[in-house]
């Protein structure tokens, strides 16, 4: 009993910490005016998610989460913010999808509570591990890195190859979009 508690309490603490990081960060993202601050809040959330990953034995993903999101994606955000000077000058504004904030709030609250309600009604998880069809049972500890690799190169082989296509098209697209257009201006 004590032992169980000794195990359980830290995990609750970890959860609370993760939740606090995630929610604070998320609220920061949607409320802060300055995009740089929003980006920092985003990092906070990402860290929180990483913590939640670690707490659920997805260490590798936690590391990748930090490397990919914090190390690359948010840096890219900051880059663009600084590069364009969006924080100081007027940014790239778009018409918000819903103009009434309270309306959106109500909508989102209803949707989320509906989601949570539905999940809770069906006891949160109803599936069974797809062991019979090439799925792998999750091992504990560091072994799941190996499992993850195996799974990606067997069950998700095609998906993995498809990500290559995805990344290439993204890179090509980004280059095409951001390319300078001096000549056309001169020509026109």
């Amino acid at each position, binding site marked *: 009993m004590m032992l169980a508690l000794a195990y359980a309490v830290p995990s609750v603490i970890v959860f609370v910490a993760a939740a606090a990081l995630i929610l604070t960060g998320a609220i920061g993202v*949607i409320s802060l005016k300055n995009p740089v601050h929003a980006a920092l809040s*985003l990092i906070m959330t990402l860290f929180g998610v990483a913590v939640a990953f670690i707490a659920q034995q997805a260490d590798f993903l936690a590391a990748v989460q930090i490397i990919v*999101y914090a190390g690359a994606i948010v840096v890219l955000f900051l880059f663009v913010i600084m590069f364009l000077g969006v924080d100081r000058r007027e940014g790239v*504004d778009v018409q*918000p999808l819903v103009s009434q904030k309270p309306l959106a709030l109500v909508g*989102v609250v209803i949707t989320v509570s509906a989601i949570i309600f539905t999940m809770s009604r069906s006891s949160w998880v109803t599936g069974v591990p797809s062991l019979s069809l090439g799925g792998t049972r999750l091992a504990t500890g560091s072994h799941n890195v190996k499992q993850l690799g195996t*799974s990606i190169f067997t069950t998700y082989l095609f998906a993995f190859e498809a990500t290559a296509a995805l*990344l290439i098209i993204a890179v090509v697209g980004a280059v095409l*979009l951001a390319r300078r257009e001096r000549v056309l201006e001169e020509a026109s």
Partner: protein
Amino acid sequence: MNVPAAWYLVLAAVLFGIGGYGLVTRRSALIMFMCLELMLNAVNLTFVTFSRTLSDIGGQASVFFVMVVAAAEVTVGLGIVVAIFRRRSTTSVDELSEMKG
């Protein structure tokens, strides 16, 4: 042993909602992108939680793909923002159109 999966699922749902709310109410394109990231993170959290509860690696593998997609999306999204900015600074303000509903 560990906190119930439900806690994480609720957390993820709330995060998803916050992201969605930000996406529909914020004006700045960059912050809207960030909200998209929030939503994708909520998805990742959901995947990992289910992966733990189901004791199945598939969920973790899916997270990997979501991350790749997030990276690709951001690349292109920021490219679009840069492109808009370029065109804006090169064309006169009057020519700018405003998108209707």
